[in-house]
Structure formats: C-alpha cells, structure tokens
C-alpha cells in the first residue's frame, strides 16, 4: 500500500465515521462534529507548525485559543457608547502608560551601565502607580454601566469575520511576548512559560470585566451566517424545505451548520495550502535544517532565535484563528470553560496521533480525535450498559459503572495516544 493510498483511506475512514453518525444518530450531531473537527484540525495545524517544524513545545495552546475568542468579541460586538464615555479613553491611556513603562524599563536595562537595577525598579514602581491611578477609576466607571447586560467597552461593531483576523493577531502578539522572553532564556524554558502564560491569559479574561465581561460571559456574538429563526421565518426557505420534504426547523439548523462548515473548510484549505507551500520552499528547508541542527544552522548564517520566534508566532496565530472561529460558532465567549485538558492536551493528542511534521497528519488527527472525544461518551455508556447488563438492578457496582461512563473519555484518549506512540511513533500519517 503506497502512502498516498493509505492516507486517502485514513481520511475516508474518518469521514465515513462522521457519515455513519449522520445516519445512525442525527445529521445535526454529525455536522456538529464536522464543524468542531474542522476547528480542531486548524488548532492541530498550528501546534504542528511549532512542534513538527521546529520542535517548540507549546503547552499553552489554551491561552492562544482564548485570545482568538477575545478578538472576536472586541471586533464584532456593538460598542457600548456609555462605557466608552465613562472611561474608555482613560483605560486606553492607562494601558499605553503600562506598555510605555515596561518599554522604558527594558530600554533602561539595555542602555544604562550603572545603577540600572535601581533605575529599572524606580521606573517600574512609578509606572505601576501611575498606571493604577489611571486604570482603576476608569475600570470602575466602565463596569458600573449596566453591569447585568454590559459593563464593558463592547467591541468595534465590525463584521465578525474580521474578528477572526484580529483573534489571530492577538494570539500572535501574545506569542511574540512569550517568545521574546522564553526563547531568549539561555536554556529553553518554553514549555513552562507557555503553561503559565495560558493560565494567566485565562485569568485576565476571567477578571477584566471591562474588556470582555469576564466571567459574566459575552453572549449573542454576531454570526457570519443567518440565524435559524430567520430562516424559519423566511417563507421562501420554508417553502424550499417543504418542497424537499424536510422539516423547516431541522433543515434550518442543518443549513446553518453547513454554512459554517463551508467557511471553515475554506479557511482550513487555505491554511493547509499555505503551510504546504511554505514547507516545500527554501523556507521549509531552512526550518528543517534548524530543527536538525541548530548549531550548524546558526553557523550557516541562519538566525535560529528569530526563526523560532517566527514559527512560534505563526503557529500561535493559527491557534488564535481557530479559537476565534470556535467562539463565533459558539456565539459566546465563556472564559470559565477553558480547561487545559481540553484545549491544550487534547490538541497535542491530535498532533501526535495524526503525525507531527505532516500537515495532513495534523488535520487527520484533528478530525479523528475530535470524533472520538465526542463519540466515546455515548459509546462508553453503551459499553457499560453491556457490561452491567447481567448485574442485578440497584447493585452498587452497576450504578457506579454507569455513572462513571463519562470518564471513559479521558481514559480512551490516553490509551489511544499511548498506542499510537508505541506502534506508530511518527503518527498515522508520518512526515515524509
């Protein structure tokens, strides 16, 4: 079996699984899996760029995904005029002051020869107090504006698709900062740095209400596709549905999901195309050279740190883009739901299972693992029902097993990861 045939077969298998879900469960569920599968594939693609191309170990995927979501909110939500009036400008000035303080401190550290510790401390302390003096009242004022429904600055009221770009850019910006710090350390401590930064990003999203309502969540984010209700109320649509013998309500939600799927497919294919082009260009050759031997690459005139930074930023931006897409699909930003197991480690499972270093592998891993993540729960329940069928009703073990079936999910993911690492360590679609 040539690799091409094998890979096609693998993709066919995954789509077969999704189709089977459509026939056996419902098309809504199947399309739901497909859509999140597409998003997962993009996330996996982002991580794969960092890990597969450059060996950068990013365990902060969650943070970049969340920043993507933030991008959508600040782009597409309607601005809250009252909040802007109450303290919008002041917050902006405060943030600029904060950024300026840090820049000044770094500059002082680099330029000054003597007393630089003292100077930097002084700059930071003074800057901090000025910042707080500007920031705190503004935030209080903004958050006081109708806190139940608003209490934040809102967004720019721009089309939500623009939010995807902004989401990617936000993630890229954060990656630039992390990369500057972590990739600059003498030994590379990227893993722990990303682990920490992801938690901090989530903490910021949870607690800075003026920005995105914090834990009060932003709901009702505009959509790039029509609302089901509007479709259901559109006589033309209902007519067509009925002409095809379909229930307009079901058909409307399927139509919306299909529209999302279309958008996502376009993004995914564009990304894969760009990634493949890059990988097969002199740029990709250089990246592989750096991955093989940093010291030699450096001696051959390649700026390894800069390239690492570049790929780290690009990969994170892709994760951010995926996060923005996910937030759009959900129609809401709920910082409380970002968990590392789901948004960092699961993505890693996708990359490793799919095949690191290979874009198609990452995509396959995204689809396959997401499918399993969703379907293992009902399957696990089924399994448990089978196992416990002979047990008497009300027997404690039976109840316990049925109750715990939900936790089969994590277990299964672990087992799959270990099996792949053992028997196909380069993943299902290995790097060429």
């Amino acid at each position, binding site marked *: 079996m040539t690799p091409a045939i094998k890979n096609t077969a693998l993709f066919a298998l995954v789509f077969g699984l999704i189709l089977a879900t459509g026939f056996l469960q419902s098309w809504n569920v199947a399309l739901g899996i497909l859509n999140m599968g597409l998003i997962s594939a993009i996330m996996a693609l982002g991580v794969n760029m960092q890990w597969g191309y450059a060996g950068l170990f990013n365990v902060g995927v969650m943070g970049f995904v969340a920043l993507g979501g933030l991008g959508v909110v600040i782009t597409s939500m309607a601005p809250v005029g009252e909040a802007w009036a109450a303290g919008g400008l002041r917050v902006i000035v405060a943030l600029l002051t904060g950024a300026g303080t840090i820049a000044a401190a770094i500059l002082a550290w680099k330029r000054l020869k003597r007393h630089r510790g003292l100077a930097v401390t002084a700059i930071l302390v003074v800057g901090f107090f000025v910042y707080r003096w500007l920031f705190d009242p503004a935030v209080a004022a903004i958050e006081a504006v109708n806190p139940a429904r608003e209490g934040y600055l809102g967004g720019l009221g721009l089309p939500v698709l623009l939010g995807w770009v902004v989401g990617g850019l936000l993630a890229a910006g954060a990656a630039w900062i992390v990369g500057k710090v972590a990739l600059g350390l003498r030994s590379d401590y990227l893993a722990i740095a990303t682990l920490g930064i992801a938690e901090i990003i989530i903490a910021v999203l949870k607690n800075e209400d003026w920005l995105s309502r914090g834990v009060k969540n932003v709901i009702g984010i505009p959509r790039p596709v029509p609302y089901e209700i509007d479709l259901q109320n559109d006589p033309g649509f209902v007519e067509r549905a009925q002409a095809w013998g379909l229930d307009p309500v079901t058909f409307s939600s399927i139509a919306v999901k299909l529209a999302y799927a279309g958008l996502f497919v376009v993004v995914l294919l564009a990304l894969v195309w760009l990634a493949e082009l890059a990988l097969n260009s002199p740029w990709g050759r250089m990246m592989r050279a750096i991955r093989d031997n940093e010291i030699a690459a450096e001696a051959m005139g390649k700026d390894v740190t800069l390239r690492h930074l570049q790929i780290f930023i690009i990969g994170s931006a892709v994760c951010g883009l995926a996060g923005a897409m996910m937030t759009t699909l959900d129609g809401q930003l709920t910082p409380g739901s970002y968990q590392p197991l789901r948004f960092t480690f699961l993505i890693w499972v996708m990359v490793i299972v799919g095949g690191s270093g290979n874009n198609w592998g990452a995509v396959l891993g995204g689809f396959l693992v997401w499918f399993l993540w969703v379907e293992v729960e009902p399957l696990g329940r089924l399994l448990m029902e089978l196992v416990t069928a002979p047990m008497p009703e009300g027997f404690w073990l039976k109840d316990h097993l049925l*109750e715990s079936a939900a936790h089969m999910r994590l277990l299964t*993911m672990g087992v799959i990861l270990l099996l792949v*690492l053992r028997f196909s360590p380069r993943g299902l679609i290995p790097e060429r």
Partner: protein
Amino acid sequence: MDLLNAIVALLNFVIIPATAYGAQLALGALGVTMIYGILRFSNFAHGDTMAFGTMVTVLMTWALQGWGVSIAPLPTALLALPVGIVVTAALLLGTDRVVYRFYRARKAKPVVLVIVSMGVMFIMNGLVRFIIGPDDQRFADGARFVINAREFKQWSGLDEGLALRTSQAITIVTAVIVVALLFWFLMRTRTGKSMRAFSDNEDLALLSGINPDRVVTITWMIVAALATVAGVLYGLDKSFKPFTYFQLLLPIFASAIVGGLGSPVGAIAGGFLIAFSEVTVTYAFKKVAGYLLPEALEPEGLLQLLSTDYKFAVSFAILIIVLLVRPTGLFRGKAV
C-alpha cells in the same frame, strides 16, 4: 503600635498557611525533580499520581473508619497512608513496566517520554474519576486544631486569633521527616548514592555495575511515596478533589524549575519560595500596618500588591525572573 497583634496576624494569615502550602509544594516538586533527575523527563502525570495515591488513601481511610479504627486525635488517614503508598507504587511500577520501559530500552528522547506521560496523565485522570468520581471528598477526622483561634484570643487577650490546624502541623512535621529521610537515603546509603550516580552519568553507572532497573524501580517507589504523602497532606489540609491535583501541576513545576530541575534541595527551596510569594504578594497588609503604624498614618487602602485573582501569576513571574538571572535555577539543576 501593637507589635504582638501584628505578629500574630502575620503568623495566622501568612506564615502558617504559606509554610504548610510550601511543604506540600516541596514534596510534590521533589517527586517531579526525582523523575527528572533519574528518568530525565518532566512527568506531566505527577499531579494525577498524587490524586491516585490520595484516592487510595481516602478509600482506605473510609474502610478504617468503617471498622471503627482510629488514632484520634490524629487523622485516621495517617494510618491508611502506607496502604496508599504501596498501591500507588504498584501502579507506578506497573505503568513503568507496560509503558515507560519500552521507551527507555529504545533510548527514546526525553521529550517523547514527556508526551508519553501526557498519555499516562489522561489515563490516570480518567481512572481516578472512574473510581472515586470527580467530586470533593472529605476524609479528615480527629482533632481539627492544635491551636484554636477563638481559644487563643481568650487565652492571650489579643485582638488577633492564631489558628494552627492539626493538618497544618502534621504537614509540616511530616514534610520535615520525609525530607530528612530522603536526604539521609540519598546522601548516606549505598542505594541512594547509586541513584545519584545514575542521575549524574547513566553510562558510567552501568559500568560500575549499578543495575539501572533497580534504580528505576526504587525511583518509582520513592516517587510514589512522595506523591502520596504530598497528596494526602494536601487533601487533609484542604480537601480531596481530583481536578485540584491536576491544577497543582503548574506551581509544582514552577517550584522544581525555580529550584533547579534535578536538584532535591532546589525543589524544597522552590516550593517554599513559590508558596510564600503567592501568599505574601496577594495578602492585604492593611491590618498588619494598622497595628504597626501610629494611628495618624493608618493606611486607607488595603495595601495589597496584587489582587488574589492573579495569585498563581506570581509563581510564573517568580519563575521567569529567576530563570533570567540564573538560567539553571537557584540550585544549579541539570540544565546547563
């Protein structure tokens, strides 16, 4: 000015909690650092190993309580601890046998082992939830306090109370004993020295006749003991919930790295550094300052450096600062 009240307030809200928390972190970080030093990878499953060990201990404690066994005023869990350690050690050795050994034999790169440990993390995570469920479990019993805040107030006549929970006292005492034992073992015994040798230079250890399998086995057993003890102490002091243990991973890793990965002394120092900075940076010093300063100068604000929302950002900030100044960690870990 009221020095006594200030000291008591500080003790009660900063020093005692931070010491107990620091001891728990240090024990966790010791486990991480042992695996890093000897098996040469960062074990992402360590938090869940702690959860597993604690879970076994909790189940055993319940059983003992059911049989009416008790060592009041000490918590029954202490009695159940050895069982927890043994079962956890068995689990870890089993895991090593079916999972890690394969990669070790193939000289897999550490990063591969890290990814493998992610898989193990998922499995243990599921396993613990499968057995005991995802919820809070209380298993502490015995006397709650060594020093009770209310009684202390009455006894001392101070405005501030001082509380020392039994679990905190046990935590600190146990941590001291465990650490002393560990260091005695590593520095003085033949086996301990052979483990240090293995950690230092695997090939040469082999050439000296040190049996690597034995070193690995003993390492897992020590790790099981450290993880279970750390987990149970944490659970006694706070409560047992599998998810919290997973979340402990960040501060534990931060401790181990700050101290210098692979260095046991570093792990301990790192644990206390992280714990104390987390608590002090987010503590509102208003009250303490109020006792110390003359009335006219009494502060208006809370004197809180950072709101508690960002408390674990502190571990991270400390980590970065230390690494920028000393890339090998406080105690010169292995990463050069």
